[in-house]
């Protein structure tokens, strides 16, 4: 590992840093321009959510290998208020912050795997993966 693989999200500028890290790793892993942009957008949304709703947190980005699959793993974690109704937050067509198609359902669509762990009062961890095809 010759790269900082994690970014603390404290200010809005850290969103850009997380995006940059994500785009670099995605490019390095061999993703094309469009997928690079998708991964970056997903990271951008996750970082923005941390910045807006938890205040601070962390984005970790790793290249991973599973069998003969290569991919990018993104872990967004915070110790914010947590999500009380995950079902609702994951519902489509509800303009929460970003409007049409954005928010966590958008992140889920941009990536291949998506997992959310949240405890009210304790924080939220979101793990998302995109595989190289």
């Amino acid at each position: 590992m010759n790269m900082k693989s994690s970014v603390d999200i404290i200010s809005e500028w850290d969103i850009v840093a997380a995006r940059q890290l994500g785009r670099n790793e995605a490019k390095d892993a061999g993703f094309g321009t469009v997928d690079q942009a998708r991964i970056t957008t997903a990271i951008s949304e996750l970082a923005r959510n941390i910045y807006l709703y938890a205040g601070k947190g962390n984005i970790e980005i790793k290249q991973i290998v599973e069998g003969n699959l290569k991919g990018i793993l993104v872990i967004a974690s915070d110790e914010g208020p947590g999500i009380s109704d995950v079902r609702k937050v994951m519902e489509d067509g509800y303009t929460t912050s970003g409007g049409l198609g954005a928010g966590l359902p958008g992140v889920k669509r941009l990536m291949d795997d998506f997992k959310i762990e949240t405890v009210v009062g304790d924080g939220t961890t979101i793990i998302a993966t995109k595989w190289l095809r």
Partner: protein
Amino acid sequence: MPQEFKKQYKEILKQYTLSQTEHNLYEGQNVSRQLIQKSISPEEVISIHKASLEEIIPGLPEEVLHSFDFLIEVMIRYGLALKEHQTLIEKQQNFKMEMDLATNVQQTLLKTKIPNMNGLDIGIISVPAKEMNGDYTHFLSNENAIGIAVADVIGKGIPAALCMSMIKYGMDSLDGPETDPVVVLDIINRIVEKSVSDSMFISMFYGTYDSALSEFTYASAGHEPPLFYCAKSGEFKELQAKGLLLGVIPNVRYEQHSIVLEKDDFIVMMTDGVTECRSKEGFIDQKIILSIIESVKDKPAQEMVEYVFHKLEELQEFEQRDDFTLVIFKKSL
């Protein structure tokens, strides 16, 4: 998958850059139709466009290529909205199927048989505005009498349909068609008052026709007054009867009245979906409705109600705003 379209796209784009004909644009839209059907997202389209252009025009300025990368970034959100749309379409189709099933259940639950009685010609039509009907009609009958209930839940759709099932079971518990209309309304009012939330009200009319006396006895709980057509004078009059809507308070005093029918006289019972028909210019005048009814007064009752419905449908330009129910009792002998 986008790759298979790449070649096709590039070819048409090339043609268009050489010659800006309508034909080439038409081909472009045909490709577009395919792209969207194959769920190719807009950012992918931009990416295909960029790659095609690079091959068509070698040595493009760097800035132009960068500008496409920027456009891809901008289009990602449009792609997300499109994917969300596909999910929502699927959801809506599932919902449609559920509503169809619910409508079937409702129809089976609430079906009522039109009774046969010598000397009384009955016509009935009930058409919902949305999937489910919030108007309700129910017949009771024996050899001597025919009872008819017409009700309208304030509100439409699913909540109204649920409320209505209540009236049905209240009606089923009655002794027979001759039960006094005020007693019928009192029983149903108690049921509704007990089981329904404060925001749901129902208007209901109950009438019973005694074949021996040719007498129609009725009472109303805040329902649209029926019309009585007197064949001798050729005039309509409203059958007024005071009474509060069902479900407001447990003890209500309803008024009960009677009228005797002569041959060719008829009674028109309805819900407000009939009287509150609107055209673009506003409510359709009652006079117009009366003249429509009168114009078919010599037809069988069932033809009458169907004619009135179609005529009013036309006047409303086929935009039905409320459930529509019309029942005619006509003394034919």
